[in-house]
């Protein structure tokens, strides 16, 4: 059973008259908080001046040391989503959201102690480990619930939640800057107080989500909805057990599809400001470059909703075909925009690329549901998130090292990104092939009534408590 009875799956079953449109805001309560991770960089510079205040003192933390906080959190996100995926799935969304809120807030509180004591290891433990666990559990917690509430529009439903993750930085970034300015004095940088305030806000916000969320009663379906009678090859009506799913080639092909799509996008996102200024010297100022980064983030968010919703109509495989085919063309076009000096065309290319980067994240839960069924989709999604962790390392490293190699070999800065763009296009071609190879899962992987997980769940249902809890 859950550590608190009201968090049990059995206590979160929707009663008659409950509107399924209450569930997306519940999911957004989680994703709008944990997506703060994208805005963590706003703390980097202030955290290099905790002792020196106006400028870094010799004992202050270095940017390279601070970079590890985000890297640890993203690594723990992937591993915890994989490890706790089954627990999240079987224990229900309320318990998972409550725990995610607790871990996420604890991450901030512990980090505040680390800042106060000026001990970076405590910050690694706080934001990196506890925050990372909150990220991992929180990210997957509403996925299967949304899919069950919206069997007619699973892409749109999960797209809405994952859009929140992309949009969270819009709130966190200005809020953090404002809070730090509010708490700072002539002799003190207000990072610790900002962490505590954010921790409290996020705890309340996420627990509201946990209170609102419901799971549909067994056998519930939307009014007027009839499941499609014509069998679609790439949409299964069977469930695949989480540990069987990761043995299938389909899982690993989707893993590479996500990893390559994210690798191409994440590297560019991290370098967007510098790239726009270096490709268009004299045309794009520092302020304009910051505006460009904001625009990319906006399209990253909007693309999550747009592409995931579109995938309900054109199919997941076709959606990824769009990402990889169009993405390849656009990446190849970027060096041309630099050569003709067209900032507008350059911006247009990248906002579309970023929309597809976000769309890749948001469409993948529905892709998994199509391939492996709804029963363990959250847990399988948890395992898939490791592709994001891997891409988080590959992407920036590829972009940075290729650029540096070009500059070291005498290539002008304005052209130093050309090879990178062609490499990214090459990655998308590989992603296209992986996506093309995806076929329906072999029926030997489908769960049968005598499957150990089915028997365990039946025993648990009979006892009124969730399995694995």
């Amino acid at each position, binding site marked *: 059973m859950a550590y608190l009875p009201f968090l049990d799956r059995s206590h979160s079953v929707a*009663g008659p008259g409950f509107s399924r449109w*209450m569930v997306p805001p*519940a999911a957004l309560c989680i994703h709008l908080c944990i997506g703060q991770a994208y805005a963590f960089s706003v703390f980097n510079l202030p955290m290099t001046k905790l002792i020196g205040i106006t400028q870094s003192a010799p004992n202050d933390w270095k940017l390279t040391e601070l970079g590890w906080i985000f890297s640890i959190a993203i690594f723990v996100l992937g591993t915890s989503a994989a490890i706790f995926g089954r627990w999240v799935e079987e224990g229900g969304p309320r318990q998972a959201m409550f725990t995610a809120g607790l871990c996420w807030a604890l991450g901030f509180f512990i980090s505040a102690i680390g800042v106060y004591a000026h001990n970076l290891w405590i910050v690694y433990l706080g934001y990196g480990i506890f925050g990372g666990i909150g990220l991992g559990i929180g990210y997957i917690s509403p996925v299967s619930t949304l899919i069950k509430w919206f069997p007619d529009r699973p892409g749109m439903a999960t797209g809405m939640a994952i859009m929140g993750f992309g949009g969270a930085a819009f709130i966190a970034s200005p809020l953090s800057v404002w809070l730090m300015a509010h708490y700072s004095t002539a002799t003190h940088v207000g990072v610790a107080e900002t962490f505590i305030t954010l921790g409290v806000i996020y705890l309340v916000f996420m627990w509201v989500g946990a209170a609102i969320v419901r799971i549909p009663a*067994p056998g519930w379906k939307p009014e007027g909805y009839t499941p499609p009678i014509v069998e679609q090859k790439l949409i299964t009506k069977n469930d695949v057990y989480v540990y069987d799913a990761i043995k299938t080639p389909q899982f690993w092909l989707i893993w590479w599809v996500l990893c390559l799509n994210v690798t191409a996008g994440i590297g560019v996102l991290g370098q967007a400001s510098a790239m726009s200024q270096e490709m268009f010297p004299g045309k794009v100022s520092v302020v*304009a470059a910051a*505006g460009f980064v904001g625009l990319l983030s906006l399209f990253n968010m909007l693309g999550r909703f747009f592409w995931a919703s579109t995938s309900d109509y054109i199919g997941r495989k076709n959606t990824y075909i769009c990402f990889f085919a169009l993405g390849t063309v656009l990446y190849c076009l970027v060096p041309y925009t630099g050569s003709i000096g067209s900032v507008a065309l350059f911006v247009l290319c990248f906002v579309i690329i970023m929309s597809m980067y976000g769309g890749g994240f948001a469409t993948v839960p529905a892709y998994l549901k199509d391939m492996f069924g709804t029963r363990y989709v959250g847990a399988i999604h948890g395992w898939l998130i490791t592709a994001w962790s891997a891409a988080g390392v590959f992407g920036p490293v590829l972009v940075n090292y290729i650029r540096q190699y070009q500059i070291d070999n005498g290539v002008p800065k304005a052209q130093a990104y050309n090879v990178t763009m062609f490499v990214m296009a090459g990655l998308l071609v590989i992603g296209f092939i992986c996506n093309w190879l995806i076929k329906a899962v072999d029926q030997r992987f489908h769960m049968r009534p005598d499957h150990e997980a089915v028997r365990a769940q039946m025993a648990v249902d009979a006892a009124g408590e969730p399995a694995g809890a």
Partner: protein
Amino acid sequence: MADQKQDGTTALHLILAWGWVGIPLAWGVIQTLQNAMKLFQ
């Protein structure tokens, strides 16, 4: 056992729930758009 008590959602519930997440998000998007406009100035 499943909790099958009456769980009716009113329009007010929906407005509150969507407002709770929508207002901060809209504020953040407006802030970002204002910054993004500098790209075209």
